């Protein structure tokens, strides 16, 4: 199999970088982006200076203000960030269609394997892109190049907020070995704690353990830890489409909650909004992610996927509840949740040839059509999904 060339572009503190483009006076101040009207607002993003003062994403705004008193506080403008992300994607697309983007967070993975005859060596593509993005958009991304997504992401973390890193093919394990385990993507706080209990703090130490040794304490996750610690990652770069590549909605609870019913109700309401938007835009979503923020500021993200995608509120709700059950693993109350629907695809109008939809699915589709008609006539809050116990 051919060695892959994966470039990771990352505009650090994306929201702040975009805000500073809009208002250059912000360059001179630490900046915190957080919804100020919310009673217990959480930090959405912050500048490097604010980070240096101890401010972190998901931190309570009042606490962040105490840490960085000189910071300018801005209300998040997700639409603006989405537009900026779209502009960034537009710069990258001419180089490869294999482009995976995060939310409106300035992260992009590009698979440029096999493009050398057109554009030259991969480091040159990455360098040119960075230069082009800086010149034409005013954004200065970190870039890294490696043979897979995992290693390129770690490499970016090594050099942020500015710089570049090339990890040669075959050097993945040696590159990772001296780094702290906290730099390895995808490890939960619980897993990091467990590794600390085993007196492991470097990725190289983890890589010395065999599959069987990892399987006992980490069970199903052992395989991931085994591969990741050696810099192995075969996950493909999944094209996320252009423009609005994801839909998301956020909810802050009035008071922190541990009531599953309340949480499910909120997610159902958010799903309705996203489902309707999907149908309006003629798209289907293949993945639903739930991001929870606990009352102590820590977070958890988990996803559930549906091959082929769906725009059916009932199915989307099922996915959201599955993601919720995966994400909510601590006995700690929840402060806020974000629902993200991504990996969007255009909805196919063609009927499936062999797989007939069940009577239930047909019925649900009719209900959706009727609900959309009600929304159109009486507004978005006029009718809601509910469950019968």
């Amino acid at each position, binding site marked *: 199999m051919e060695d892959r060339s994966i470039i990771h572009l990352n505009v650090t503190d994306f929201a702040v970088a975009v805000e500073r483009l809009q208002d250059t006076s912000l360059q001179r101040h630490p900046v915190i982006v957080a919804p100020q009207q919310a009673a217990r607002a959480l930090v959405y993003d912050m500048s490097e200076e604010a980070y240096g003062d101890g401010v972190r994403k998901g931190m309570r705004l009042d606490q962040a203000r105490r840490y960085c008193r000189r910071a300018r506080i801005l209300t998040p403008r997700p639409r603006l960030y989405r537009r900026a992300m779209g502009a960034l994607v537009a710069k990258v697309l001419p180089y490869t269609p294999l482009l995976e983007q995060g939310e409106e967070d300035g992260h992009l993975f590009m698979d440029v394997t096999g493009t050398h005859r057109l*554009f030259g*060596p991969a480091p040159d593509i990455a360098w040119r892109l960075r230069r082009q993005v800086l010149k034409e958009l005013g954004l200065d991304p970190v870039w890294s190049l490696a043979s897979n997504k995992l290693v390129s992401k770690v490499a970016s973390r090594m050099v942020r907020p500015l710089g570049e890193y090339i990890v*040669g093919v075959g050097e993945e394990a040696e590159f990772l070995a001296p780094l702290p385990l906290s730099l390895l993507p995808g490890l939960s706080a619980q897993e990091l704690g467990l590794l600390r209990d085993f007196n492991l703090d470097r990725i190289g130490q983890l890589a010395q353990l065999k599959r069987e040794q990892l399987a006992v304490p980490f069970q199903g996750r052992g395989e991931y830890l085994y591969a990741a610690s050696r810099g192995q990652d075969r996950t493909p770069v999944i094209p996320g489409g252009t423009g609005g590549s994801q839909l998301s909605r956020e909810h802050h609870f009035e008071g922190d909650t541990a009531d599953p019913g309340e949480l499910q109700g909120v997610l159902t309401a958010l799903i309705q909004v996203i489902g309707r938007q999907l149908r309006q835009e003629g798209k289907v979503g293949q993945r639903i992610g739930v991001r929870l923020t606990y009352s102590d500021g820590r977070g958890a993200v988990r996803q559930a996927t549906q091959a082929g995608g769906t725009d059916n509120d009932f199915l989307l709700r099922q996915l959201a509840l599955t993601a919720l059950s995966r994400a909510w693993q601590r006995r700690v109350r929840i402060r806020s949740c974000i629902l993200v629907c991504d990996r969007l695809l255009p909805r196919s109008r063609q009927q499936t040839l062999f797989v007939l939809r069940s009577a239930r699915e047909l019925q649900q589709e009719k209900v959706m059509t009727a609900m959309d008609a009600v929304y159109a006539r009486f507004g978005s809050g006029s009718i809601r999904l509910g469950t019968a116990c």
Partner: protein
Amino acid sequence: MNDKVQGHSCAAARGVVERKDGLCPVLIGTSGYSYTEWVDSGFYPRGTRAPQMLPLYADSFPIVELNYTWYQMIRAEAISRMIAKAPDSFLFAAKLTRTLTHERERDWRQELKRYREGIKPLQRQLAAILIQLPPDFEWTRNNRCYLAQLLDGLQGFPLAVEFRHVSWAKDSVFAELQRRQVTLVTVDGPSLPGLFPCLDVVTNPSFFFVRFHGRNCQGWQSGNMQKKFDYSYSAQELQQWNDRYLVSLRLQAEKGVVFFNNHVRAQAPANAVLLRELLWRE
């Protein structure tokens, strides 16, 4: 076969052109070695992966110019891993990082410190540090000051400076390089106005440094590396170049290094072999 002859034939096989009739020895190589398209083009055997390229390259050539050090800051640990893959006698020329030549918006003194640290493991096998300056780096007071400070900061290393702008083609510049024992890079490139000319000026008798960029006039300004360096020298062109420049350079220095930068479709290694054979035949 005795050891001496065997040693000579190994060196010869890897591309060292020995001293002859008052002409100094020349080491011929390419700018960069890790190109996937060199597998497609047949220089590397089918299925060669990136980690296998340097040992294979070192079977054919005695020296390489490291390009990737221009794209990213050189790092000691990565350099150490790379050196381990090449024979002890193999030499490297390392480009200075772009944050010290083309994109100087960061604190260049700090960057220089990092570069000096990063290159340490290479020191024993270092043929030269190549300071390639951008086309818009003209002969101005500020740029002269910067270059002087840069050369001061790199004192102790074998240095070669490649100018791209014609305004540096001055006797005063050559005299200053000579005073500092810094090599002026001889470039062969397309005939375009504003470009630094091809000269057989030797400012440092320890070594001369030649770069063959190819003569693709259209591609040079395209902004696309695949077009810029898409050129193949003919035997006749190389012979003429040897007669006009290389002989003169070899008479003035103790040794020389020559790199082919026309990497597209593995034209660089093919031309390097062609020049080597041409010099062997003489």
